[in-house]
């Protein structure tokens, strides 16, 4: 896949993700992933991996950054809420939730493109 083909979806996704951070819903990441995969990414596995990784890292970064601002009380709370799991796992759980959902949406987008062609 050429750089040119990568460039547009990345720019669009970054733009939409930033937009989503200020206005939108948690599942908008999935919608974006679906749309981009449908138009730009042929491979289902590649779509899944790209968006899973991207949103996983994006959510992970956001929650760690926000948590650090309040001396990590949110992760401690979630840890207690979810049965005394490690606070680090709460970050991973958050990242996995966003990543898996978006990855799956991307997989569907790419699949639809393959079926409709």
């Amino acid at each position: 896949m050429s750089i040119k083909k990568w460039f547009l979806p990345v720019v669009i996704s970054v733009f939409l993700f930033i937009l989503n951070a200020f206005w939108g819903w948690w599942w908008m990441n999935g919608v974006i992933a679906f749309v981009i995969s449908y138009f730009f990414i042929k491979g289902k596995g590649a779509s899944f991996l790209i968006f899973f990784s991207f949103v996983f890292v994006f959510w992970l970064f956001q929650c760690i950054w926000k948590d650090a601002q309040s001396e990590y009380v949110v992760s401690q709370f979630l840890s207690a809420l979810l049965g005394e799991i490690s606070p680090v796992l709460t970050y991973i759980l958050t990242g996995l939730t966003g990543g898996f959902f978006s990855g799956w949406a991307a997989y569907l987008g790419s699949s639809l493109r393959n079926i409709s062609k």
Partner: protein
Amino acid sequence: MLSIISDMQKFVYGLHFSIFLFVLFFLNGNIELFRKTIPPFGKFLDPAKGVWHHNVPIGYVEDNLTLPISKQASVIYDERWVPHIMAENLEDILFLQGYTEAENRLFQMELMSRAAAGELSSIFGEVTIELDLDKRRRGIKFAAENAVNAWKQMPEFDLAQKYIDGVNAYISQLKPEDYPLEFKLFNIQPEPWTELKSALIFKEMSLFLCGKNEDIEYTNAKNTFTQDIFNQWYPEHEDIENPVVPDHSLVIPDTLFGKQQDNSSFYNGIIKKTFFETRNPGIGSNQWTVGKSKTKSGSNIFCNDPHLSLGLPSIWFEQHLKTPQFNAYGVSFPGFPGIMIGFNDFIAWGETNVGQDVEDLFLIEWADDKKNTYYLDGKKLKADIRIEKIAIKGADPLYDTIRYTKWGPIFKSSKDGKNDLSIRWLSHDKPKGAEFMTFVNGMMCKNYDEYLTATEKFQTPAQNFGFSSASGDLAIRINGMLPAKYDQDGRFVEYGNNSKNDWSAFIPRQLNPHVVNPPENYVSSANQRSASKNYPYYFTGNFENYRNKTIIEKLKTGSDFTAQDMQKMQMSSFSPKAKEFVSVIPTDCRQMGSASGINWYDKLKEWSFEYLKDKTEPVFFEIYMKHLRMNTFDEIYSKLDEVAIPIPKDWVLYKNILNDPLNEIFNIKKTSTIENADNIQKLAFFKSIREIDSVMTAWKNLNWGNYNPLHIYHPTRIPALSANNLAADGCPDAINAKGNSFGPSWRMIVHQKNPVEAYGVYPGGQSGNPFSPYYKNMVNDWVEGKYHVLHQNITMEELSKKQVKKVVASPNKVKS
């Protein structure tokens, strides 16, 4: 072939997509599984708008708001997150009070109003249906609607409306990401605040404080035992009493209440178990003032510690309200305007519960099988039918038909279907005065006369209103409406087919027990009887018998009191009950050995009778008291599964051990021998040793703190939001009246020097946000008996050094 593969692909894709959509809706909280409420995990974990959004950045915060107030105002949060609200007039103060309370306690306010209305199931699902049914059948919403209808006709209501406007101003600017955590957890949205919601919170407190009766229990006791046994084991008066208002302060009217006892009005049968059993009675409150001749400084010291259910966030919200006209500091109930317990530059005020019975049960005689009509004074009357719809999350709504008679709603029904009981509760009545202004007007007073006028419209739940002024006055007034009853009236279930059994009058307010500047130079109340036997009106209810004695003894014998002495006194864990019962344990018990080698008899005799968290004596004593009660009252315990009968009070048990040890109640029915008090005490002691041996084997470090831990629950009972298993000193009979989840919910001491010095603490924190450092930051201080200085007379310069947040509120329109 190609077409088949394509169809297969489409099928697989469709399957994927369907599962994906299901997961989407599931993670968004739109799908319930197994009729259980599942948190919307996707929405909840969203870093942008979910739980991670609730991080509270550390450091100073400044905010500017434009609000519909008349002049610029400010809200400055100090180092404990106590808001100092400063405005130019009362209207703006009330608006900002509403705004600030909503900003910090919105979920608590919403939940409390929904709990009162019987609407919890709309949030929590089927698990709270019983609670909702209880509230609906008790008519809490009916009572709140009656109150609102009356309040709205009163000119003072405009001020209360300012408070409501303030709450709504906060709610209206909320974005979904700013909803309090619990709203996200349960996937609900804040609704506009209304006067009905404030009224519901007020009625919920009425329910907690005066929504108790033991009519069924006492009816069963009266009809189970002989008259002599009943009188001996269920007396209403102690031999020596310390009423809140001593005899010399009683006002004896020229014309006494003329109604005479009429035993025929009482139901003479046994009422089997009902659907809604008696509530936890709670453990009361303390309030006392020592006058200037008994303090070291020569200034009054006012103390109050109301004992309520402890929760996170606390039921109280601490705040400082200041205008050019007044400078008040204290605590309020979020959802209701004014300061309930507090002080200003001139006076200090507070309350304890009176406990007089204002809730009676009447047995309904139905005139038809469908229970649509009932008999009253020989006539058939139609019952009002109110169909209550209870919305249940994840299930179809439940419809409950509630019948209202002349007395009130049918609240209790026996499980055998034979007895329907209608409840006559004072809180159902339409208020005749602007009771909602009591704590707004009270916080602005400068002397006792003003305070009397400001609080005279308070109706229910009746409270002992404590008062102290910087000029040296001290007083307690039993404030509220009290039904004028004939002897024994309201103690038992009465027949509901005769309107003569109703309350025919109320005690004139000027004749309510009242004491001002007594010669002993102190006043106190601890939920004991407010008036003595000599009070001309029948006074019945649930009263305290131990704490008041410790308080009065300390106040009577002490002198040169300081604020620090008062702090120690509020933390006293001494139990006069333990001292009494230990003093009469037979000496033979000393010979009873324990597997641990501890001689519990000697240990108890050497005990200081203080319930300290690191002591084991309180554990043994509590086990001993349990066995003592169970062996003495075996004839009651054996019936409790079918019939509710009250266990006689401990002070009555002690009195009978001393004065009538051969009484037939001490005999254990199932044995062939005749037991007396001495035998029962030895048996209880023996069983206690056996039990504590097994307890000590199971517990490595047994002491009062871990045997009887304190739990401060979040309303949802989610452990991560609560503070559980706290080891703390105290017991219900001590001044430091700690129960499992009850206790001194706000300890306040006001030393009325010039300037005023005040101290306070409550077990919780100011913020309702569990992620805030101010959510439960005062819990440990409270457990350890530490107090905080209350910054009521702080200068702006000092406050600016302590401030952690400042909000400047500017008017959004110019008022003429």
